[in-house]
């Protein structure tokens, strides 16, 4: 019955859409008087041309995988969680408290503990909006937006009044103990004789993100809970008929979502900064929305979209380093990619479907 082969839907359409987005990005670059071809070369080389570039790309991608998965879990239950930013912020606090609480002897102990801390704090920050949605019908889009602001204020307070190192000019926590240092790709790959740039921030968390993606797949498509989440997301009345408790699903889905967002902190806080700084999330929560939507709420899609956005972030940085193109250009490119792959994909799909239909009809004839 399908109008198009699956591969076309999954690969061809996004690819064409991205090309269109890049074309328009090129137009913008050209319009501000720079050479688009040099720019793209700089970006690709900067993001994938060296292990350092790859390390940064994957570092950013790790953040986006976590927040993307977070948005996607909620979305399967038809909940639009815009609060990834706040949940990841609080996750950072959780990770920090865990890392600073104990002089960790080894990362293998610190990591699971920090994961629990980050996930718990992130989940806790998602819980209140979830509870209000389930019990009071308060619109979750609004409450999660509000919780982003409240989270930022809370973190500002805690950093300044609780975690700040006395006498330091910086509003940041103390450095984590050496035992809480997560192996970077350099350290992870060295035993295999692979030489990965020593300074790139990609770390162990990337593997955790991949594990989380696999877990996400099983949760959503293979477990009863995932089945109930999806069922509730499609139809609340049917869910009630089937004996699924809507309030329970709303709360659980949001707790998982918040936990995933909170988990992001093992990457940016524990893996990279190794201390808690203000605004450590830097919009990854919002990028997560785009990543989830572009990735069609499927872990593979989310993974690919995260890599794409990691590439844009890192390639964009290189653009700013070497081409003196304003850093906001990257934001423009991101916008165009989101627009064309996410919102305007029918512009590509409809003609393509017709093409395939005509083609298959011809074959039949």
């Amino acid at each position, binding site marked *: 019955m399908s109008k198009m082969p699956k591969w076309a839907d999954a690969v061809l359409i996004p690819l064409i859409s991205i090309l269109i987005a890049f074309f328009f990005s090129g137009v*913008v670059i050209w*319009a*501000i*008087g720079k050479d688009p071809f040099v720019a793209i070369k700089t970006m690709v080389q900067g993001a994938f041309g060296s292990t350092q570039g790859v390390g940064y790309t994957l570092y950013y991608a790790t953040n986006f995988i976590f927040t993307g998965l977070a948005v996607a879990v909620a979305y399967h239950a038809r909940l*639009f969680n815009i609060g990834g930013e706040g949940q990841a912020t609080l996750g950072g606090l959780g990770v920090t408290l865990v890392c600073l609480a104990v002089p960790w002897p080894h990362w293998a102990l610190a990591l699971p503990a920090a994961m629990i801390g980050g996930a718990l704090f992130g989940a806790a920050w998602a819980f*209140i*909006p979830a509870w*209000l949605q389930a019990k*009071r*019908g*308060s*619109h979750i*889009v*609004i*409450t999660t*937006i*509000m*919780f982003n*602001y*409240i989270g930022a*204020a*809370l973190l*500002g*307070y805690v950093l*300044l*009044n609780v975690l700040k190192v006395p006498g330091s000019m910086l509003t940041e926590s103390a450095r984590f103990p050496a035992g809480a240092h997560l192996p970077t790709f350099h350290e992870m790959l060295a035993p295999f004789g692979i030489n990965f740039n020593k300074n790139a921030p990609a770390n162990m968390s990337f593997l955790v993100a991949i594990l989380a993606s696999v877990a996400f797949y099983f949760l959503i498509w293979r477990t009863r809970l995932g089945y109930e989440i999806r069922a509730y997301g499609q139809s609340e009345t049917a869910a009630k008929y089937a004996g699924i408790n809507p309030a329970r699903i709303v709360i659980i889905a949001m707790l998982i979502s918040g936990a995933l967002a909170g988990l992001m902190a093992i990457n940016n806080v524990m893996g990279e900064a190794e201390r808690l700084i203000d605004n450590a999330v830097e919009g990854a929560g*919002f990028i997560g*929305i*785009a990543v989830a*939507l*572009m990735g069609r709420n499927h872990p593979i899609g989310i993974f690919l979209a995260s890599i794409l956005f990691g590439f844009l972030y890192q390639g964009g940085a290189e653009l700013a380093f070497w081409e003196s193109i*304003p850093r*906001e*250009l*990257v*934001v*423009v*490119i*991101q*916008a*165009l990619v*989101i*627009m064309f792959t*996410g*919102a*305007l*994909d*029918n*512009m590509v799909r*409809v003609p393509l479907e017709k093409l395939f239909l005509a083609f298959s009809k011809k074959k039949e004839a």
Partner: protein
Amino acid sequence: MDYLTIIQILDSSVRLATPLLLTCLAGLFSERAGVVDIGLEGKLLAAAFLSSAAAAVTGSIWIGLLAGIAGSLAFSMIHGLASITFKGDQLISGVALNFLAAGLTVVVGQSWFQLGGRTPSLNGAERFSPWTLPFSEALAKIPVIGPAYDELISGHTALTYLALLSVPLSWWVLYRSRFGLRLRAVGENPSAVDTAGISVVRLRYAALVIAGVLCGLAGTYLASLAAGFVKDMSAGRGYIALAALIFAKWRPWYALWATLLFGLLEAIGNRYQSIALGDIVIPVQFMQALPYILTVIILAGFVGKAIPPRASGQSYVKER
């Protein structure tokens, strides 16, 4: 707290509420027609930038206003293209537009003015000047009413009065005109509109045009108030307007009260940054988060379930 302080806080609330109100009404028209618009923030920013740029170049805020509206309209039309014509995801389109505005304003601004995305400061006729209503000098001396009239009611710019005026106007259009009936219908059940022989697409575009104009006004207001553009100067007001919209249950008069409330909360937060209650000093962070905290409390306690227009957020697809 003395009377004058209250008046001044209210005055500040009105100033802060004006862009929220215009943006909120923009969202109202768009969502009433079934198009969810989280791109309000981006439109606001785009309008602020273009109005400021045009005013700076031409020396007239009125030309700035036109440019601001044009910019906001252009964004509206992109949103329409994505979510109406190509039946794309309205949320994604909105998110993309917000990014686009945040990036383009700076990239273009830098290319035009070489001020790092800022526009030159606006002076004189490049800004709206406050309107002093008749007799405000004379009345100012009268106790109670005088200061209220002079400080609170008089002395805002044209756009504030326009914003206030657009509340009854919106109400009238929505509930008393044919266009309004159709607009509301298309947000509730587009197939009913379609089978009644009216174009769903045209109606939704019309709603987006209105939203674009209103956002254009709001953005220009911001630029004029701040006397220029700096990057990201919309500072989340588009999102707050969306919150107000839900709070207002998609109704014009409620929108006025909701945005005034948000304005009031912000004004209070501005004025009382840290409050000492006995030994406990409430930290500034708390006061600044107060509007958001109160929003949550209000949503939890008073509003209950806000039911959006039934077809909002969905593209109208006849055949798949």
